[in-house]
């Protein structure tokens, strides 16, 4: 299948460097090629959504963007700087540009909500206790959660955990936000609320967003551009309205939620 990576619907910006560039990324786990030559570019301020079946390599790709996994081959360029070739100290510096929200929140269960959101502030800033508390309140307000600072993470519902995860991700005012399956396991109403929060965060914060999801409804709500990942390759990239009308039979089946015979997730 031709890789129609092409930047259908992409606004050419006369040579301005992309915020994130992925060049020919390959990764193999236990003899299985999970990523097979991924190329993509995300512009500053853009909300880029990568969709695909379970096992298509979405999470692995997202973890490469922030350097949690090193590729076998290829490069991840952040603001013109090659994350894959940076030493440990430099890659920690580059990571400070990121905020990441994990699938189940990945909240520290040894801390309450306040401790979780305050954690990056305490590690990386010299803010006073009052300033940190104020910033935590501000982040929680942005995700529409107020008065939960003293709750243990075990007391939170799935949707609340995601939102606390968002609040923690934005605490250090990152330039890039990564969302790993923000809607997985949530009911449609809560899922809609989460999408709303993501859209609002984008409006209020000057950030570039990359989200991976298999939920097309959510993708259409939050994306500027959508890329389809299949068997470790990007098979199409398009703006949401153009994405719906792509002729690729696999994409049409994916949109319609119909089974594809040759693939078992």
């Amino acid at each position, binding site marked *: 299948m031709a890789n129609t990576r092409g930047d259908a619907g992409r606004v050419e910006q006369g040579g301005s460097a992309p915020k994130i560039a992925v060049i020919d990324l390959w990764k193999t786990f236990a003899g299985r090629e999970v990523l097979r030559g991924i190329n993509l570019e995300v512009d500053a301020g853009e909300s880029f959504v990568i969709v695909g079946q379970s096992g298509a390599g979405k999470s692995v790709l997202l*973890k490469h963007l*922030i*350097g*949690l996994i090193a590729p076998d081959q290829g490069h991840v360029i952040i603001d013109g700087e090659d994350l894959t070739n940076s030493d*440990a100290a430099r890659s*920690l*510096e580059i*990571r*400070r540009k*990121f*905020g*990441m929200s*994990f*699938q*189940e929140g*990945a*909240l*520290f*269960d040894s801390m309450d909500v306040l401790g979780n959101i305050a*954690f*990056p502030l305490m*590690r*990386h800033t010299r803010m006073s206790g009052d300033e940190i508390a104020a910033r935590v309140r501000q982040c929680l307000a942005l995700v529409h959660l107020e008065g939960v600072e003293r709750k243990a993470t075990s007391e939170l519902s799935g949707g609340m955990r995601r939102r606390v995860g968002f609040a*923690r991700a934005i605490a*250090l005012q990152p330039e890039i936000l*990564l969302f790993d399956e923000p809607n997985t396991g949530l009911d449609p109403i809560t899922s809609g609320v989460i999408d709303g929060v993501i859209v609002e965060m984008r409006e209020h914060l000057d950030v570039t967003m990359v989200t991976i999801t298999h939920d097309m409804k959510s993708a259409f709500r939050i994306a500027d551009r959508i890329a389809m990942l299949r068997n470790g390759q990007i098979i199409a990239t398009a703006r949401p309205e153009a994405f719906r009308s792509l002729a690729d039979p696999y994409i049409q089946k994916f949109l319609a939620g119909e089974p594809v015979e040759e693939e078992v997730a």
Partner: protein
Amino acid sequence: MSAEAVPRSPWTALFERIGRHSLNVFEEVGRFFYILYNTIHWTFRRPFDIREWVRQMVRVGVDSIPVVGLTAMFTGMVMALQTYRGFARFHAEGFVASVVSLSLTRELAPVLASLMIAGRIGSSLAAELGTMRVTEQIDALYAMATEPIHYLVVPRVGATTLMLPPLVAIANGLGIFGGYGIAVGLMGANPIMYWDKTFQFLDLNDVFSGLIKAAVFGLILSVTGCTKGFFTTGGAEGVGRATTSAVVMGSVVILVSDFFLTKILF
């Protein structure tokens, strides 16, 4: 790419198996030294998380006093009971105190305390870090530009290494006290003579080498526990495996290294 079954001789299968096991052993050893090296590397880097160090020292040290103390006291009591009966056969009861104090300080207190801590702390380190690994909390630390070894492993390994010697010192005292109680209280030994004999052959060197051993065992068992937890894969089952193997590996490595340390220190 068909892997059509080329019949393999039993020898090939045997060598394959040996090769796979050897690779696993090298991998385990490599991981242990990776964590050890990085722990030392990050120990002297800012920020120093004093509160976390204190929390871990309380968990490893203060909270372990009952279990270590009880173990040492009963070991001293059994030592006195056994040696008193044995030595009485050739009228050497007077040496019971010396045997109890020397064997406790040089060998039994450091090894038994470390084995107890391997069970209590090594397992909990593996379970804690393993759970953090499978629930992506360790990835979250990386994502927040925080080195997990710096934040998680350094205080845990540091606290265990620092707290084992005082725990062993307490174990020495309680073990000797237990032996005294049995010999004097139950067997009718002369209390003043028992006390004299306890310290007659006991050198400060015996005590110090026991404490050095304890620190090394603390380092080994905590690095083993953290390594097992840090590289956990496979969900809840993986955490269970990591926990068990942290205790087994920790205990075996303590016993093996005890031999070499004894050879070097004494």
